[in-house]
């Protein structure tokens, strides 16, 4: 068999069956790592492979599923010893039949960030090592994956360390999602975008249960990429003792796959040579029909695949332009501020979020990466990575978990050359702005001409037509009134004649005019009628969202007005939403968030921001703190008060940023949950309390290496560092962090806390303070800073 034959979608290739099943049948003892058999029982592996080849399998998966440095730790063997030996076993077995041999790679067995502690880069490095050790194979198979982020790390490792074609299969539950929540459509979009040569489903379920999922996969994998399945031998018995399906039943259950256009079939857990023999007989000479592909433009995160098939809203608020508070947050690397903005846009109904972190004086590439990581840990909307700096885009694209949209290229050749290859490599869709070296053409026809050039360049770079978006650029009505209609005409022509999708930043239309909302809503409505696909706007402005929702009703896309009714059936008139007029102190003490924010805004109208903090906020917090200490109120109330104070504080920050004053700060404090530990609820509570008291907290997050703590202390000059650890196994990281701070001679005090700590242990590891709870930490800070 040749590689061309393997990937030929007009023939059926038989894959092999389960390896673990055969090893168990051969009496593999409990606890033995199957990968070590490549050196201890090569004869056994070779005979299993040979049996599969003789049964009809034309691609043999070498016994390297768990041959990664993570999984081999403690076995006494290295990746470099086992991988070539395992491939050699399969190679010898393939000699008679000419079957191809795959380097087989399974998951690393640890959960990646943000759910787990394994970093994307470390996963990449582990996969790269296995890939480099397996260059003797004909192809690489990534299989039984449950985490799309791990698929991305592995695919990048394959593509950057080998020139072999890569087959990728994930494993799904009956609900069509993997354990980590990834859906079939997101898998297809990301795997295809990252250059997989074949895309499939294996394990977890039997042929019957996988069938509907395979149908969905066949509909969304781009044409030309083969789809494959390797189901288990049905569902296992409840007691785990094996499978009831006979080999004949298994092969018969594979029959319906013929009509889907699947071009490679095999088996996973429980399947044996008999299953494969019967499968090969059933599929002998079968020519699969063309798949029924539903072409669509999809942008995605693992859990959410957004199909752009009507107008969708891109939230515009993650952008520092003209927003002093946002600029301040970027300079301070205050990710919490960005996350709050992101969540509020998501709650308001945005389907995508634009992310722009460009600001003079910041390291935009580093900030883009940090922001993408922070956002994707908390919101599951696909992101639009917005930058003109190719380095910033690449940093964001590399760590992004899903298929993003890049904002943007334009008609300048230099820009097209720099950014389109990045979009292709990382599987992103792209926005082209209709401007070039000569600026923005005024006339619609000239803008369409630029769009055409961009589209052709994108197609030439290998980007699919459905992944090309054109922004015809909204010119302001106040300055270029004559050309407002040109923008709308250009949208219509681009859509009709170029076969691309369109996007517009809507709010720019009203710049410089009063009552901007009237103009924005009207312009948006006109653009929607011309076929606009993506509207970049502020989703927290309800009339804009209402215009989109209304258009979906009027254009017949919202069948039965169901979505519109769901959104507005219980909507109260806007004027009734005013919170009651209670004082800031009452709002904080009663833990009322919205009221606290409103009360702070009222106070700030005629009170100095620092006065608001010192005369109103802090005394209220002190009273709550005293109640907590006396046991008259409890942690939940303390936290609700803290959250209310936080929302009041946010108003103070906005006021100060607008005045151009320096931010409130009683002093700088660095907080971290130590390396190896991802339990951070306690640290988060401490942070909120400290911020309430006006400290400027640099929160390094969880699983933080000692070096990062030292770097942050050096950068901020913080006199106090707070470290938390929950587990006995991570206390040693706490000790190492303190040691490093002392070694580097950094003049900071260290306060430590966490469930397993004791005052004695805190003293032993060299901490200056032990804090029993969050309130105690705030007391220590108040003492230290005076």
């Amino acid at each position, binding site marked *: 068999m040749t590689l061309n034959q393997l990937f030929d979608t007009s023939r059926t290739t038989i894959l092999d069956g389960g390896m673990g099943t055969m090893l168990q049948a051969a009496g593999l003892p*409990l*606890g033995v790592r199957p990968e070590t058999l490549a050196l201890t029982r090569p004869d056994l592996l070779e005979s299993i492979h040979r049996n599969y080849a003789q049964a009809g399998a034309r691609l043999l998966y070498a016994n390297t599923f768990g041959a990664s440095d993570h999984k081999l730790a403690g076995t006494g063997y290295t990746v470099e010893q086992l991988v070539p030996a395992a491939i050699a076993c399969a190679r010898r077995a393939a000699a008679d039949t000419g079957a191809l041999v795959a380097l087989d790679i399974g*998951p690393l*067995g*640890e*959960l990646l960030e*943000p*759910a*787990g*502690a*394994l970093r994307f880069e470390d996963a990449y490095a582990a996969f790269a090592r296995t890939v480099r050790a397996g260059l003797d194979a004909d192809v690489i198979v990534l299989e*039984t994956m*449950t985490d799309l982020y791990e698929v991305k790390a592995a695919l990048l490792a394959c593509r950057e360390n080998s020139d072999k074609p890569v087959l990728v299969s994930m494993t799904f*539950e009956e609900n069509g999602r*993997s*354990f*980590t*929540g990834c859906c079939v459509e997101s898998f297809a979009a990301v795997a295809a975008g990252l250059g997989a040569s074949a895309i499939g489903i294996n394990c977890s379920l039997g042929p019957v249960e996988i069938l509907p999922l395979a149908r969905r996969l066949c509909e969304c994998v781009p044409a030309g990429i083969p789809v494959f399945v390797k189901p288990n031998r049905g569902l296992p018995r409840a*007691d*785990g003792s094996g499978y009831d399906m006979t080999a004949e039943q298994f092969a018969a259950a594979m029959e319906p796959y013929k009509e889907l256009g699947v071009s490679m079939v095999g088996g996973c857990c429980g399947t044996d040579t008999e299953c494969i023999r019967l499968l090969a007989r059933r599929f002998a000479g079968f020519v699969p029909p063309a798949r029924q592909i539903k072409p669509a433009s999809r942008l995605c995160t693992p859990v959410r695949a957004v199909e752009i098939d009507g107008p969708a809203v891109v939230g515009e608020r993650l952008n520092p332009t003209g927003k002093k508070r946002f600029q301040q947050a970027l300079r301070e690397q205050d990710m*919490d501020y960005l*996350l709050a903005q992101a*969540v509020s846009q998501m709650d308001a109904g945005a389907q995508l979020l634009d992310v722009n972190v460009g600001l003079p004086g910041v390291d935009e590439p580093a900030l883009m990466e940090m922001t993408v990581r922070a956002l994707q*840990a*908390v*919101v*599951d909307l696909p992101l639009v990575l917005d930058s003109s700096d190719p380095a910033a885009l690449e940093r964001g694209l590399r760590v992004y978990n899903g298929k993003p949209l890049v904002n943007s290229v334009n008609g300048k050749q230099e820009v097209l050359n720099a950014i389109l290859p990045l979009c292709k490599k990382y599987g992103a869709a792209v926005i082209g702005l209709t401007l070039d070296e000569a600026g923005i053409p005024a006339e619609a026809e000239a803008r369409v001409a630029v769009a055409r050039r961009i589209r052709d360049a994108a197609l030439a770079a290998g980007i699919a037509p459905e992944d090309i978006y054109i922004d015809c650029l909204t010119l302001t009505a106040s300055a270029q009134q004559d050309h407002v209609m040109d923008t709308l005409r250009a949208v219509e022509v681009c859509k009709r004649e170029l076969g691309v999708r369109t996007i517009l930043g809507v709010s720019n239309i009203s710049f410089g005019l009063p009552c901007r909302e009237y103009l924005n809503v009207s312009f948006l409505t006109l653009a929607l009628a011309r076929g606009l696909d993506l509207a970049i706007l502020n989703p927290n402005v309800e009339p804009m969202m209402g215009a989109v929702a209304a258009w979906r009703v009027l254009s017949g896309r919202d069948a039965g007005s169901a979505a519109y009714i769901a959104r507005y059936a219980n909507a109260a008139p806007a004027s009734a939403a005013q919170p009651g007029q209670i004082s800031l102190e009452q709002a904080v003490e009663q*833990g009322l*968030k919205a009221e606290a924010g409103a009360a702070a805004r009222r106070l700030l109208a005629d009170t100095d921001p620092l006065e608001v903090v010192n005369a109103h906020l802090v005394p209220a917090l002190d009273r709550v703190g005293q109640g907590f200490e006396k046991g008259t*109120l*409890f*942690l*939940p*109330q303390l*936290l*609700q008060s*803290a*959250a209310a104070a*936080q929302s009041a504080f946010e108003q103070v920050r906005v006021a100060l940023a607008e005045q151009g004053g320096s931010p409130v700060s009683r002093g700088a404090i660095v907080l971290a949950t130590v390396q*190896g*530990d*991802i*339990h*951070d*609820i306690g640290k*988060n*509570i401490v942070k*909120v309390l400290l911020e309430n008291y006006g400290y400027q907290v640099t929160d390094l997050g969880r699983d933080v290496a000692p070096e990062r703590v030292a770097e942050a202390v050096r950068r901020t000059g913080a006199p106090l560092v707070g470290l938390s650890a929950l*587990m*006995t*196994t*991570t206390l040693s*990281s706490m000790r190492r962090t303190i040691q490093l701070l002392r070694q580097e001679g950094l003049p900071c005090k260290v306060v430590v806390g966490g*469930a*397993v*700590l*004791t*005052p*004695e242990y805190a003293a032993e590891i060299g901490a200056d303070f032990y804090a*029993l709870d969050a309130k105690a930490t705030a007391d220590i800070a108040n003492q230290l800073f005076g």
Partner: protein
Amino acid sequence: MQLSLPAAPDYPQALRYLGAPPEDAASRALLERCAAPLWQAASPRGTARAIPTGQLPAELTTGRDIRLHLGDSAQTLLFAATLGPGVDALLRRLAATDVAAAAAADALASALVEQVCDEYETALRREWERKGLYLTGRFSPGYGDYPLAAQPVLCRLLDTHRAIGLSTAPSCMLTPCKSVTALLGIGDTPRRGHRAGCATCALRTNCAYRKRGTFCDAEPTV
């Protein structure tokens, strides 16, 4: 396998985890707000497998307490259950937006994983009793002197990553966070096993329960 969600939240337990008294209405209201999103986010799964006790790898029988717990049980049931990564994602989102709700949801999720384990254990117990065999209670790494280092070994033997999406980080912590692993002894006579009690507990010197004169466990054996 997929496990079902309990019909109602265990508010008293969650209140205890939060450090609030059972009658505190404000805390209870906060917890009630978190229940629906938590139930939505949770996707509980469990897996279990019996192994002859004599064949357990040495890492799984390290320490006095686990050996006392298993006693003369001829077999040992390895047990794991998780609420899934959706709960972690919910907790991350709440942590970024509402720290009070985050703490409450965390407590409610801890109570939920215990409820799920209890129901799963009950089902397994019933199954074994049909074969005339009896189970002890659950004993988890980290109890008493039973080291957390048992965690990765247990997960590997159960193949939890593949079976239920549960894995261990190098620090031995379980991911997703709201997960439980345990060992249960299996024998042909009814058995209770051994509870770790306070004597060998790592938290003995600063335990909040002990300071109040109570215990973290309903039936302590000191």
